[in-house]
């Protein structure tokens, strides 16, 4: 009886195996040719700015010209992309190509998850400022796609005739707008990326000259936090609560007169507002006479360490295709971003566009975004304290002190 049961079990399993193999991949017609490959591309572009669609369109265009190459394009939030890539790399299932921001180069190079690109591309064709943002230890860790990625002031011309030149002028125009039921200024109050320009305007920086020692507990940081607190609670310029999407929606709906946002959204705002859209520098800090200094970098292709052989050849070819002059100018047209290719940046399409010219004017006063791993500690330490000040639950001086201690604690854990 037992023997029969054992053989019955074997028979069932064998039938299952045949069934599975019959519906599986063994049919000769379905066997891929040796050249066929699928490139897994992860990017962090948003759909609202039409940028995610642009990435997909580039992949589709390449596949159309190279039918043996398919793309699996995956869209992730910037931070999720970083976390997932690290986890996937540890598990041995990293994607073949990344399209991301420059500050990811810090953690990725520390963990040796990406490869240098110096020997793979003719980097002299890209603008120096774009390349400088991904150079670490003398090697270049990414191929620039766009140049900028900086914050600037967008304003609605139907609500604001002339953009404020300095913070005093900005605060002075607030009551008139508030009386009309318009929020004078919106920005993402949850991310310190929006704090950094003001810190520069008050003469501060997040690192000492060595580029790795945090300098967050400084008079400039206290003044910056106090300024952000005051425009919210004293001048009532900004809403009680606004994250990225909230601020973006208020501006797009014409309920906010001005927004501080990145160049990545220029195209979407122009499509939405047309001639009503104006761009200017973030107003000069009246107290210091200095321009706010947003971080500048761009978007980059980064190649994971595990991408080798024919896949690496295909990835290199795709990057050259995606950043050729024709596609760089296509990016200017579709996304209104400054290109990273020198020949495209010199094209009249870029130099003759007033919005892009204003964007470039803001970039002039920007500073390169640090790429070192220590910057993660600064971001993570500034975020909760900035939020606490903007929630009116912490004094600026206390917040600056806690930022510093938190960053130092974090840096100790990096080792």
């Amino acid at each position: 009886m037992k023997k029969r049961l054992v053989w019955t079990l074997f028979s069932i399993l064998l039938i299952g195996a045949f069934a599975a193999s019959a519906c599986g991949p063994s049919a000769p017609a379905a066997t891929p040719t040796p050249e066929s490959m699928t490139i897994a591309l992860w990017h962090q572009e948003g759909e609202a700015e039409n940028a995610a669609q642009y990435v997909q369109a580039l992949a589709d265009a390449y596949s159309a010209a190279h039918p043996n190459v398919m793309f699996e394009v995956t869209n992730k939030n910037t931070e999720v992309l970083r976390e997932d890539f690290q986890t996937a790399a540890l598990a041995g299932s990293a994607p073949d190509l990344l399209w991301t921001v420059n500050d990811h180069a810090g953690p990725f190079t520390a963990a040796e998850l990406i490869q240098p690109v110096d020997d793979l591309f003719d980097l002299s064709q890209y603008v120096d400022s774009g390349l400088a943002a991904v150079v670490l230890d003398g090697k270049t860790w990414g191929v620039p796609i766009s140049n900028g990625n900086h914050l600037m002031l967008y304003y609605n011309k139907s609500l604001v005739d002339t953009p404020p030149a300095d913070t005093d002028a900005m605060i002075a125009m607030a009551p008139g707008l508030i009386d009309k039921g318009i929020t004078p200024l919106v920005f993402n109050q949850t991310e310190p990326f929006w704090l950094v320009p003001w810190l520069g305007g008050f003469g501060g920086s997040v690192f000492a000259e060595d580029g790795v020692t945090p300098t967050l507990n400084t008079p400039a940081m206290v003044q910056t936090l106090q300024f952000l607190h005051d425009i919210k609670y004293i001048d009532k310029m900004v809403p009680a609560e606004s994250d990225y999407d909230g601020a973006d929606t208020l501006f797009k709906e014409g309920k906010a007169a001005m927004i501080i946002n990145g160049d990545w959204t220029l195209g979407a705002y122009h499509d939405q507002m047309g001639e009503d859209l104006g761009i200017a520098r973030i107003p000069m800090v009246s107290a210091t006479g200095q321009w706010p200094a947003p971080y500048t970098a761009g978007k980059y292709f980064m190649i994971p360490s595990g991408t080798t052989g024919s896949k690496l050849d295909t990835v290199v070819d795709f990057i050259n295709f995606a950043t050729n002059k024709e596609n760089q100018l296509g990016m200017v047209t579709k996304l209104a971003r400054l290109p990273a290719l020198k020949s495209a940046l010199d094209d009249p399409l870029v130099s003759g566009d007033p919005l892009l010219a204003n964007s470039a004017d803001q970039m002039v006063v920007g500073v390169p975004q640090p790429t070192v791993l220590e910057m993660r500690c600064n971001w993570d330490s500034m975020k909760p304290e900035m939020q606490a000040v903007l929630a009116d639950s912490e004094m600026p001086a206390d917040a600056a002190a806690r930022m510093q201690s938190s960053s130092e604690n974090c840096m100790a854990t990096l080792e």
Partner: protein
Amino acid sequence: MQQLFAQILPSLKEAGWTILFVVLAIIVIEVVAYVLLAKVLKSPHALPLMLLAPAAAGIVALIIYPLIWELNLSFTNMSLRHFGDKAEYTWVVCQGVDPSTIGNWITDCLIKNYADVFRLPVLKQVNFFPVFFRTALWTFANVSLHVTGGMALALLLNRPLRGRGIYRALLILPWAIPQIIAVLAWRGEFHYEYGYINILLTRFGLSAVEWKSSPVWNFVAMIITNVWLGIPFMMVVILGGLQSISQEFYEAAEMDGATPYQQFREITLPLIRPVLAPAIVLGTIWTFNNFNVPYFINQNELETSDILVTALFRAAFEYNRYGFSAAFAFVIFVVLLLYSVAFIRFTGGLEEIR
């Protein structure tokens, strides 16, 4: 059509290979088990052991091995600077350090990560115990409201009521919605400008609430969401328990002149205890370990809203403290194990099952 087929084919192939691999692995396991147990050892239990073998292999591969891997990880210094193969055991790292700088070899070298869980911030600023007590408060508040709300609704639905099936279906609805979808929908409702709750509050002349940036209100928002999600489970469990109680007890109690409260206390509560106690233990573990609600409702990443599991996630995947996080995870595991054993012993909740 051809293009669609070309797009679907790779995923079908992938699934086919996976199924084939699993089936072949089972065949190999069965053949090895058969030869070993039936032919070599001539065991009388060959068949039941063969039937158990694939499941046991799955448990080893999916639970036992990862646990051992994580235990091993918890004794290493793995971080971004010591990633993957570059990670070293903390006591090995100590060998390269000046011995005079090591205060205690056990806590500074051997179990450094475990000691760090209690002596260093587990987040940016907050140490273990404040997060632990917040987690206890979060768990207590939620489970109390789940049981109270679930009990009230179950008692109502246990009565003869027109349209009882419809009410029951409606009340179970939150349970049927995927948790992550429900949480993201709730997060939208907590938006300051566009959220339904603030719109409602302002219509009634009240001030809008800063659900995402105020530490207190963000914690309240988390509890509101989790109570909405958790009541259906408790209601279904308690309703099942109530329906198993014979009406004869209540009839006898009524004849003896017992009040409804006395009936509830003396009949209902004792008789639903065998289903209620395990449900509370499960509810407590699920709430204690609930990741989706605290993580996604806390969109601004307020440290004041983090509970142990979200702190663990941030330590591992946002701050990349992998070795530390593995130790942190074992500490949380031990806390839950001790709680579950103590609760079950105290309530005697599983006595009936024995």
